[in-house]
């Protein structure tokens, strides 16, 4: 599904150039659950942002389902993103002014789904995430775990092929964290490819493969059995 070759990313200021990704190579197959680990500043989040087409690489190739997407323009990237990729963030990133229902509905609005179908699909996914009873609440009225479930619901409502999760349990206690990891595992079992950045060895154990980064390149890959 994903093949990156010699991927490079630099951050430049007037005097210093920092290498975030250094000729990185990585391949991820459809249906895989991959955890990306490494110390702070090793390029994990940069990689995730490039994979999610939120950021441009400075060099190398990025094939998504066989298409070179490294140099897509803003419009094409937005289009590919909204149909194929779902995001889960550490800080949930729910919109405070929208209710649970409306937050989950948002991706469907941007993909132009009809009102009736939106309602069906949002209710379906909220039920699945066991958060249907909170549909009319605002994010600040929910617990952290509930908020992350809403965020996952929002990430999956468009039935994306790929979910990118950036430390999804980082702001949660262990029991809520485990719940979220179970949810991700379920999604993966149903066929969704998942790439997750994490600091937690515990969470990483839910994945099939751990990619360890240091100074912008892969240092080790562990296959989980």
């Amino acid at each position, binding site marked *: 599904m994903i093949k990156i070759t010699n991927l490079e990313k630099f951050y430049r200021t007037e005097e210093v150039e920092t290498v975030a990704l250094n000729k990185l190579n990585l391949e991820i197959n459809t249906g895989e659950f991959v955890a990306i680990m490494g110390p702070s500043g090793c390029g994990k989040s940069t990689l995730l*942002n490039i994979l*999610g087409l*939120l*950021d441009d690489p400075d060099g190398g190739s990025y094939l998504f389902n066989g298409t070179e997407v490294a140099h897509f323009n*803003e*419009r094409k990237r*937005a*289009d590919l*993103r*909204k*149909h194929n990729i779902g*995001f889960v*963030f550490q800080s949930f*990133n*729910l*919109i*405070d*002014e*929208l209710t649970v229902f*409306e937050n989950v509905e*948002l*991706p469907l*609005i*941007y*993909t132009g789904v009809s009102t009736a179908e939106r309602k069906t699909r949002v209710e379906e996914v909220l039920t699945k995430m066991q958060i249907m009873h909170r549909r009319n609440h605002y994010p600040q009225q929910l617990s952290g775990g509930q908020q992350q479930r809403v965020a996952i619901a*929002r990430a999956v409502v468009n039935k994306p092929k790929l979910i990118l999760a950036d430390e999804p349990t980082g702001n949660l206690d262990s029991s809520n964290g485990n719940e979220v990891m179970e949810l991700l595992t379920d999604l993966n079992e149903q066929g969704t490819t998942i790439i997750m950045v994490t600091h937690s060895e515990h969470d990483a154990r839910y994945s099939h493969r751990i990619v360890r980064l240091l100074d912008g390149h892969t240092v080790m890959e562990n296959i989980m059995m």
Partner: protein
Amino acid sequence: MIKNYIKTAWRNLWKGRVFNLMNVVGLSVAIACCALIFMTVYYEFSYDSFHQNVKGIHQLYTVTNRTSGTERSTAMPIPLAPALKAEYSHIKYITRSANSGALVKAGAKQLDQNVHFVDADFLKMFTFPLVEGNVNTVFNQLNNVVITQQAAKAMFGNQSPLNKTILITIGQREEPFQVSGVVKDIPRNSSITFDLLLRFEHFPNYKTDLSKWDNWSHMAFVEFKEGYNTQNFAKQLKPFVEAHYKADIDLLKRDGARPDETGSLLSLHLAPFASNHFNTNLNGVEGYPVSKTYVLSLLAIACFILIIACINFINLSVARGFTRAREVGVRKTLGAGKWQLLTQFWTETIMVCLASTILGLALCAVIISPFKAMFKSRINLAMLFQPQHLLAILGIFILITALAGFYPALIMMRYKTVAVLKGNMGDTAKPGKIRNTLLVVQFALSTLLIICTIITWQQINYLSNKPLGFNKTEVLSIPVNKGIDGSKALQLMRNDLRSNSQVEAVSGSYMNLGRGNDGSTRSSIIGFGMNGREIRTNLQRVDFDYVKTLDIKLVDGRDFDLNFPGDSNAVVINESMARSIGGRNIVGRYLFMFPEYQSQIIGIVKDYNFKSLHDKIEPVSMIMRKQFAINYVFVKVKPGNLLHAFDEIKQSWNRQYPNVEFTGSWLNENTERQYQSERRLSNIFVSGAVLAIVISCIGLLAISVMIVIQRTKEIGVRKVLGANVAGIVFLLSRDFLKLVMIAAIIAVPAAWWVMDSWLQSFAYRISIQWWVFVLATLMAMLLAFITISFQSVKAALTNPVKSLRSE
């Protein structure tokens, strides 16, 4: 989608309600002021536009090049109009026109009416449609009179006035007239106003001046045949002028006057009637012209306020946008396109603008009365709903939403997704050049208005306090009403007040000093030959004790005195006149001002400002010639207890004329009244400056809120490292104060230029002082500093642990 936008917009607006309220208040105040000002300006520009052929109508005026300078005058001699029409084939219509007050009797009713003496062409040129009578025949008979519907109603109630007879007293003569036509009531935006139209033959002195080309007494209007190029008028009329004004031109030549570039000493010109309402350059035009500068100043201030409010709107929206950067990031991640984001933020702008417009119009309704009083505006609320005004409001609404809405939406759309999701604003948070430029523009306009306010106030203060050379405070001026013999009134008052211990002196004159409660101003200038050259002087018909009553200082000779019977032919002159005559030992010399007799100079008074301080003091000659009426009675009282004195004089008047209203006023009230337009201008500048400053400060406040949010971490770190409150307040204010300073540097030369041009219209004026600019700059900086302090002090006092934790 739209529903979703509106819903989100509403929740966002509600969440940021303090910010948005500031936005709405600023914008709605600006919209209300602009709506009122635009209506006023539209109204002023609409003057006389109801005349169907207004562009074809012109008023005649002469330009005379005298040795003393160029003189423009709209006063025409009686034989001019008929001669011009007979000799000049391009003229379609021509009419003479003169105003007078008259006492009208219709049955038992007695009314004070405004009479216009006109020729038959008048109603063909000007669009005053007849509701009764025929335009071609209404002036067929010499005793025909045309009246307005309002006058008809006042005289005859609901009866048809046609062919009814009324008695009209003009001067001292009462004559019967027959109503031959009724014109529709005159629109409010008409320069020409009248109750009655009479044939020009009834104009006083018509018969005696019928063939005199040197007696200039009335206005004249012409309308040309189609296709005539008015540019050629002065040139084509040269032979006509040279033939008919030969005597005048010969006198000018004798005095050594220099011809202008066309070789003329005296020439006839045309002033377009379409711009009559703004024609303040010519004395003697219809109505009360207003200065175009005044109207344009209003317009400029309205535009300034609108610009300032729009800038606020932009800055506030951008500031609010920063707090929503994360939302933008999330929406982009979820696949929102540029246009979708732009539309969403624009929806919010439209909602704020709509709320502001509605609130602004409601505010209009509330403040229209004080506005009308303050600016002497004749607008009404109904005008707001006229199609052209509704369209203008719609236009302003679209302009604001387009200009003020697009930029903030664009800025928000450009946030870098990855950065804003992390709460890092990156480059977008840096104070942009655009924002700084906008702030500079706002404060430049505000400083400009502060400077204008200070300078107009100084000039008005100067006008009010400059000694004028006569007693302003203890002299009461009483206009003698229409239909009353002024000399008789003066005599009656003099006799009645003789025994009054409060009264020091009583006199009377033809011209008032300043502008009395009757609102009229008069002037009379004559020229006469002396030692082979022409001397021109203002004539002031006075009565005994005039100099004494007004406390004018005698520098030589004496005042008119009852004990000298020969004084009725004597003359008292001012110093300017004495200089004009030249030589020494002027008292005792004779002037040949009138053909019947010589006038002996019996006294010279110190120069005094008998006109407003717009004009330099000109030569004036006081005479007691009976042909000029006494129009004003002056009473000088003892200092102190002026109110009591006023009451006693009023009672005295009421004893003589129980049915005639007493309209006396102190001379200082009269002189103040001359500067009404300056006061209005000053009011405009003050209100404009206050509004501009308040709205600018609202904007600055919002921006300081934003800056403090952005620099929370920096403030925390600095405090941990030992910065004190003053240091942090200074840090946060410094950049803004720099901008205000730049604004002042831009505003100062502009303000100097504007105010210097304005001051040029006064013969007596203040000189602009440097400290005014420093004061205005300091005021702007102080206000900006106070505004920023609300936020910066709060930020500086916050516990650094709290601000660092927010990271």
